[in-house]
Structure formats: structure tokens, C-alpha cells
């Protein structure tokens, strides 16, 4: 009876040691939840500190933030586009408009980057939407694909 107990305790300890050795190798390359972050900050680094009105052709500054938590290195491209109230953009479809600016960045997993950007808009209008879309390079096809992340700020673009 005691022989069996000794065997069982010893084997249980060995089992724990085997699991402790193998587990890190099995889970080391699997992120818990894969996601990317995209944010726009005002030039002072605050959320909501955005310009409400800008003049046509004049420059204004923002901060662009991108974070990579995909579990692997990613090559991101952020496109800035201008739309209006009728423009259609969703998580599955990017805005159909030519980009007015783009920024490339390569980030490792768990890395983020805040980039100062300077923009100007060439067409006047009220309630314009300045849209920032996150695209990511698909290494298989070698093309950038829409990464279903976007953010916008509303602007009045004036001539005076």
C-alpha cells in the first residue's frame, strides 16, 4: 500500500516537472488576443484636443498613434482621407477617396509609436471628415490591406 503511494507521489512530481518544461514551448508563440491600435491626439498629446476649424491650404498638427499587439511584427500604413457627411466608411470597407497623406511604420509585437504629422486640406466645406485608416502589409501577397481600424475628426474648412 505504502509502496504504491510512494510511486504515485514520485510520478506526480515527475509529471509536474514535464508539464512545467513543455508548457512554455507550446504557448510561447500564441498571443492571447491579437489586435492593433490606431488613435489621433491633438498636437499637445491630448485626446479631443483637435482643431475644429482650419483654413484651406493652411497646415495643422496632430499626433498619430499606432500600437501593435498582433503577436508578430507588422508593417503598417496609415492613410489620411477627406470625406463629408455622406461618405461611407465602416470596419469592413475603407473610405472611397484618394489619400491626402500616408505614413509607413514597422512595429514589433508589443511596440507602439506616436508620430507628429502635419496636414493641410485643399477644399473648403463644413462638416468635413478627416479619416485615418490603418492598413497592414500582407506578406503573402505583398499588398497593403485594410485592417478594419479607422478614426475620424470633424472639421470645418474655411476660405477666410
Amino acid at each position, binding site marked *: 500500500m*505504502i*509502496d504504491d503511494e*510512494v*510511486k504515485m507521489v*514520485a*510520478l506526480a512530481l*515527475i*509529471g509536474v*516537472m*514535464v508539464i512545467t*518544461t*513543455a508548457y512554455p*514551448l507550446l504557448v510561447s508563440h500564441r498571443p492571447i488576443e491579437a489586435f492593433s491600435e490606431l488613435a489621433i491626439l491633438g498636437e499637445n498629446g491630448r485626446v479631443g484636443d483637435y482643431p475644429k476649424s482650419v483654413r484651406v491650404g493652411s497646415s495643422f498638427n496632430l499626433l498619430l498613434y499606432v500600437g501593435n499587439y498582433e503577436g*508578430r*511584427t507588422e*508593417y503598417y500604413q496609415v492613410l489620411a482621407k477627406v470625406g463629408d457627411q455622406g461618405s461611407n466608411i465602416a470596419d469592413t470597407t475603407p473610405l472611397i477617396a484618394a489619400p491626402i497623406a*500616408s*505614413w*509607413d*511604420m*514597422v*512595429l*514589433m509585437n508589443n511596440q507602439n*509609436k506616436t*508620430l507628429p504629422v502635419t496636414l493641410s486640406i485643399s477644399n473648403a466645406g463644413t462638416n468635413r471628415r478627416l479619416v485615418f485608416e490603418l492598413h497592414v*502589409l500582407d*506578406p503573402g501577397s*505583398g499588398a497593403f490591406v485594410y485592417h478594419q481600424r479607422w478614426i475620424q475628426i470633424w472639421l470645418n474648412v474655411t476660405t477666410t
Partner: protein
Amino acid sequence: MNRGSKGFIVAMLTFTILSSTVYAAPVDDLRIQLSQVFSLVVKAERSGGDVSGLVAKLDQAASLLNAGDAESLARASSLINQVYGNVGNVADLGAKATTLQYLWAGWTIALLGIWGLLIYLYGSRIFWTLWLRLKRDWRVEAV
């Protein structure tokens, strides 16, 4: 040769041909080169290589692409070529390190398994032999 190795070689050849035909590298051509070298870096990362230095250089090259002036593009091109020159070594080192890691883990698990078997077969005998040696000076008295 597996599919991964073939893809790696094809990507390197494509990059070599492209980089040798670009004389004045405009932004779009450099972006294509950057994309191709990035694909090699991703493969090196998957093989277990430490790509942190390469990624930092690629990100610097991407920032220079954003700047867009001739001097920045020349520096970006230089950085992309530096990464291209080093990515093969990083991939090889990563593959070797990963193989060693798995071998070491396999060896440890095998050793633990052998220990388990020995304990299962001889554990109780060894335990009682040691117990008897430890208690050999004891005297048993009826209470």
C-alpha cells in the same frame, strides 16, 4: 527543400533583381523593396531569430520614406539594403537557436521520463532500503 525555404529564396532573388534595376529610387519603388525585405524579416522572426535590430532599421527607413526628400530616400535605400544583407544570418541563427531549444526541451522531458520509469520500477525498493539504513539503530519495544 521545403516550401518556406523556396519562398525565402524566391523573395531574395526578386529583391536582388529589383534593387539592381532601380537607379533613382522613387518612393513607390523603395516601398516595394521595403515590403519585400519586411517579408524576409517576418520569415526570420518565424524561424526564431531576434529581429529587433532589423525592425528598428526598417521602421527608420519607413520614416525616411514619409519624409520623401532625395537625401532621406537615399538613406532609406541604404538602410533597406543593410537589413537585406543581415536578414539571412538572423534567420539562420534563429533556426539554430529554436532547434537547440526544442532539443534541450526534448532531452529534459526524456530524462524526466526515464527518471519516472526508474522510480516506478525501483523507487519503493530504494525508499525502503534507505529507510531501513536510517532506522537501523532503532530498537522496537512492545508498549
